[in-house]
């Protein structure tokens, strides 16, 4: 069971991890400052496995992969939003942070609700409110990247098969 940290629209990568901390690629170090500009209470109150819920355009702004790394490093298990900024979404898929596009969940879940992602990622369950929300499916090509274990796993496989870069 995970607790939801609920925020609004346009949660940008500068509030997810301010640029002054982009002096490392270590998820744990980055995680120590995750969301500190948006909600100082998050760092004090988060528990491993919690989820972040945003509105529209979650992760807008910079291409910094440090943003999903910081969220992962903070122990967050998934991000749910009405919509995601495209670079953030792609980065999250690439590094194996679970991201779910679900307008119904983004509207239905409130701060502190107990939520659960269905096995297989088919739906989001809100235990606090007894609600269940659908999730927009990923394109098959993107599902393959997820199934392979991220983009670098795909690269490793291509390199083993004698592709470029070996």
């Amino acid at each position, binding site marked *: 069971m995970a607790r939801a940290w609920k925020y609004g629209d*346009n949660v*940008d990568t*500068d*509030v997810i991890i*301010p*640029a*002054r901390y*982009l*002096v*490392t*690629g270590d998820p744990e170090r980055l995680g120590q400052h995750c969301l500190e*500009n*948006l909600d100082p209470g998050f760092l004090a109150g988060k528990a491993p496995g919690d989820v972040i819920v945003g509105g*529209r*355009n979650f992760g*807008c*702004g*910079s*291409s*910094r*992969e*440090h943003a*999903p*790394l910081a969220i992962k490093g903070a122990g967050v298990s998934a991000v749910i939003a009405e*919509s995601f*900024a*495209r*670079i953030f979404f*792609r*980065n999250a898929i*690439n*590094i194996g942070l679970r991201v779910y596009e679900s307008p119904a969940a983004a509207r239905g879940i409130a701060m502190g609700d107990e939520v659960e992602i269905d096995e297989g990622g088919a739906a989001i369950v809100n235990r606090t409110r007894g609600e269940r929300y659908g999730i927009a499916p990923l*394109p098959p*090509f*993107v599902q393959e990247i997820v199934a392979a274990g*991220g*983009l*670098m796993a*795909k*690269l*490793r496989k*291509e*390199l*083993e098969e004698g*592709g*470029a*870069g*070996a």
Partner: protein
Amino acid sequence: MAMTLAEKMLADRSGLREVEPGQIVETPVDLVMGNDITAPIAIREFEAAGATRVFDPDRVALVMSHFVPAKDISSADQSRIMRQFAKRHAIRHYYPEGQGGIEHTLLPERGIVVPGDIVIGADSHTCTYGGLGAFATGVGSTDLAYAMATGRTWFKVPESMRFVYYGRRPPFVTGKDLILRTIKTIGDDGALYRAMEFTGEAIADLPMEDRLTMSNMTIEAGGKVGIVPTDELTLRYEEGRAQRPWRLYAADPGARYAEEHEFDVSALEPQVAFPSLPSLTRGISDVGEVAIDQVFIGSCTNGRLSDLRTAASILRGKRVHPETRLIVIPATQDVYKAALREGLIEVFLDAGASVSTSTCGPCLGGHMGVLGKGERCLSTSNRNYVGRMGDREAEVFLASPAVAAATAIRGRITDPREMAKEEAV
């Protein structure tokens, strides 16, 4: 099937006769780019995956731009990872501090990216190169690592939006004002996952540096790419500059656009984005009295030579307001040298500005002009999010170099036309 500019480019370079929005394509890239913040993670992933060589050392650009000269020990250590990688792999387009500048100004300026290119860069403002007709978009470090190894990436073919600008631009209405007004109209996610196509007589008439400014802020509307169709002006800009042959593309008549928007630029005035979203833009007549602690002229959005010329034309013979500080950062080494030759740097220094070496620095609250609690900055950069330039209680307003220069003199957000009028009296 009639295709938009973005569709034409992706189809051609992916070896397909046609593509449609939503389709996934795998496409060879002409250039991949990383900077001192994003490349170190890409290098870590590249090496962890077992890659031992880059697909083409001439097609990888590594630019020291953000935290250079190193702002602290940790950033120096990050830069070192990139310096060593560039040397080990004989990266041709490697630019340490003192030899390059901000990547998005540098690569077009030196002809390293050319019209028709497919470019991905681990920096969200890679979309800048759309101004010269490239399909260029920002990605993260892992995507950069994959492309450095393979020379390929994947794209979901975006839907396209067409923006038509007509009429004659009044004085002090620049590319920055056009794009801020556009973002105000469509919103911060108005072009999410989409390609923006900037067209119309006012674009045909728009100097290349202003076109680059417009494409630069595509990402502030969520866009994947923001492309200006190549024309005579593009080719004149590329003459003697392009390091590789270019490719020319045009949208087909009858291509399908998800949305079309028209703007009469003759009715436009200088624009100012209020904290803390670029879409919170107002015409300067609706700004009111806003005192400003710091003015920043620079960044990949507005740190080019034409920007410095405009700012200097307003600051010449004037002093910065006693309660305001002005920071001017030429975006590249070449811009800096040209500004020095033209006497612009002396104008800034005489006005009481702090002028420094090329860096992204203050734009992202990195160094060289970080804001304290409650301070207000008017910046020519691209983002005014909470905490972007420093403390979370600092506020950032975005505007053109002309507004910035006038504001630095008056100490409050000022319409440059107002100053020009007073000069004439």
